[in-house]
């Protein structure tokens, strides 16, 4: 495993003026990997990303990001709007393929498989790396059909009873079973916002993925629903590897073990969540966490 030695603090504690002018691009050979402060590696990595660049047309959206996502951990990605955290997340199961002008460079591995290998098939990849989106997006079908969608298309079950079992287990894990068990044939879009988002989580875990990507899963929810989903994320950590993008630092602090701070397309700092929030090493991270911008 590569270990990263953070650069001397002198170069990164830029004066406030530099922030306004934009984060200065870092291309210094003296660094081990890039300008990131902190340890980008995980002890037992599930996914590893190295030197990832993402372009939208000619515009560079992600610049040279390297990051590990460890097994059974929740890693939070925070940063101001437009910093590229969602773009990076979408690279991890190649959802960016759906955007024509988007181009990805670098290397991202799931276990030992390069997921940008030309021979790789995105369908099983996405079955292994599931995704929950910002806005709850249940299909306009029944609750049951929403959850059963993944197992059905992937042919995971041989019989109706097996499928029933998966639906029930998934809804149980998503903490929604008790609320909907009597109305599984009602349309999913009829649920409340928080319930819809948990339904989407249930839909994702019904395929038994190994990694779950969550793109601001609570941004459209009220505080109570948010608390419920956060609880759920914590419970899911025992079985799954979770990467969550969030706009809220409190949420990152509550649910994650590691936190990565993105700024203008670059990964500025990574570290244990406690360390990042109590003792940020990079000036930008500190300014963000202390609320000077964001």
């Amino acid at each position, binding site marked *: 495993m590569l270990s990263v030695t953070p650069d001397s603090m002198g170069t990164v504690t830029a004066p406030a003026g530099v922030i306004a002018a934009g984060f200065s691009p870092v291309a210094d050979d003296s660094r081990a990997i890039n300008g990131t402060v902190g340890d980008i590696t995980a002890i037992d990595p599930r996914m590893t990303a190295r030197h990832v660049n993402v372009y939208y047309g000619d515009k560079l959206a992600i610049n040279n990001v390297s990051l590990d996502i460890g097994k059974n951990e929740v890693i939070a990605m925070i940063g101001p709007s437009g910093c590229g955290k969602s773009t990076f997340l979408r690279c991890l199961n190649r959802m960016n393929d759906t955007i024509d002008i988007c181009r990805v460079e670098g290397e991202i591995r799931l276990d030992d498989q390069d997921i940008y290998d030309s021979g790789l098939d995105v*369908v099983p990849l996405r*079955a*292994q790396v599931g995704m929950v989106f910002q806005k709850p997006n249940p299909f306009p079908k029944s609750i049951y059909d929403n959850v059963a969608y993944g197992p059905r298309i*992937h042919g*995971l079950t041989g019989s109706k009873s097996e499928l029933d079992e998966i639906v029930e287990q998934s809804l149980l894990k998503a903490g929604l079973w008790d609320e909907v068990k009597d109305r599984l044939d009602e349309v999913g879009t009829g649920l409340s916002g928080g319930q819809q988002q948990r339904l989407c989580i249930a839909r994702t875990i019904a*395929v*038994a*993925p190994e990694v779950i990507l969550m793109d601001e899963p609570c941004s459209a929810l009220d505080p109570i629903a948010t608390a419920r989903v956060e609880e759920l994320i914590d419970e899911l950590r025992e079985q799954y590897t979770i990467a969550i993008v969030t706009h809220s630092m409190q949420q990152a602090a509550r649910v994650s073990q590691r936190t990565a701070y993105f700024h203008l397309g670059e990964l500025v700092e990574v570290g244990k969540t406690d360390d990042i929030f109590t003792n940020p090493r990079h000036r930008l991270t500190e300014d963000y966490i202390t609320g000077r911008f964001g």
Partner: protein
Amino acid sequence: MNKPAVEQMRTIDRVNATLKQRYNRECRFRRFGLGAVLLGLLFVGLMFLNIIGNGYSAFQQTRILLEIDYRAEVIDPTGARDPATLSSADYAALVKSSLRALFPAVQGRGEKRELYGMLSSGAFLELRRRVMADPGLIGTREQLWLPVDDDIDMLVKGYIDRRLPESERRLDNRVVAWVEQLESTGAIEKQFNLTFLTGGDSREPELAGIGGAVMGSLYTLIVTLLLSFPIGVAAAVYLEEFAPRNRWTDLVEVNINNLAAVPSIVFGLLGLAVFINFFGLPRSAPLVGGMVLTLMTLPTIIIASRAALKSVPPSIREAALGVGASRMQTVFHHVLPLAMPGMLTGTIIGMAQALGETAPLLMIGMVAFIVDIPGGALDPSTVLPVQIFLWADSPERAFMEKTSAAIMVLLGFLILMNVIAVILRKRFERRW
């Protein structure tokens, strides 16, 4: 509970197990889609090929070169140059004697009649026209190309197979031999068919033209444009800019949307019952046709105009109102000019629809056989699509060619209008 590790292994293996099958289905679906698009394009291509292949030859007409002797004793025995005498003279006799001179060997009544039949029965009209225009021709001789009968025309254009046995052919061997003789001397050839573009309708295919129908379409469209554009724009302005949201405007809107989908023939019934039977307007007149088509195209124009008005941002209105303009001034000084390109585009598309419309015009009597070229919106006339309908019913092979050619002209006009609409849209398209 399942053991997570086992579960995970199972998932990916199971996914991989059915993957090939799923990709086959994906591929099949994609091919279906591509096939559907290609099939649609094939239909477009087939129709155009079919029509152009059938119709291009109608822009040429076979003519025979004859030496005409304008004998004074036939045309004007008295020498008074009286127009009445000149117009009623027996020009056909001049044509016949020229033909006989070309084929001196032809004897016997039947044979002669067959010889005369080679030329169009209206060929002598050309002589009359020339003499009426210039009486000085009388007593002189000149070389003149005269149109042949439609069967000969078909033979020269290759639609009648010369190798077929005589009994299965429309023309007998003698006529074919005459044509071949003329071909060898170069006295018969295909020339540009001006009559087709400028002439009125006729029972004789070689004399029939779309001139009358084009003029009828023109008058009808002018009436339609003059009525539908101001009314459509006014209605759109009211509905978009002034109308309160209430039951009445809802009713108007439902009506407009519904009228856009009412079968066109029903508008024809309306025209027949209201304009012709109730108001007593003349049948077959472009005025009535234009009124019926106005009612038909109004929904299109209103819907397009409203969309154009909607695309003008409210900030423009606020700016004008802010300096103290009345709402009416705001709309007429600022909003309407900005929305005009969109409205014009919609109007052109509506006009293109009106130009191609046939069914309602059948109801108001624009199907009559009309030889004269109409001179105004009240003269009985027909329009281009109805002319196509009438000719399509005629049994002669030559009319099939004319029909296809008339369709080519109609499609040409439609393509032109649509191109103008597209250019207008591209040119004035604004992104706010």
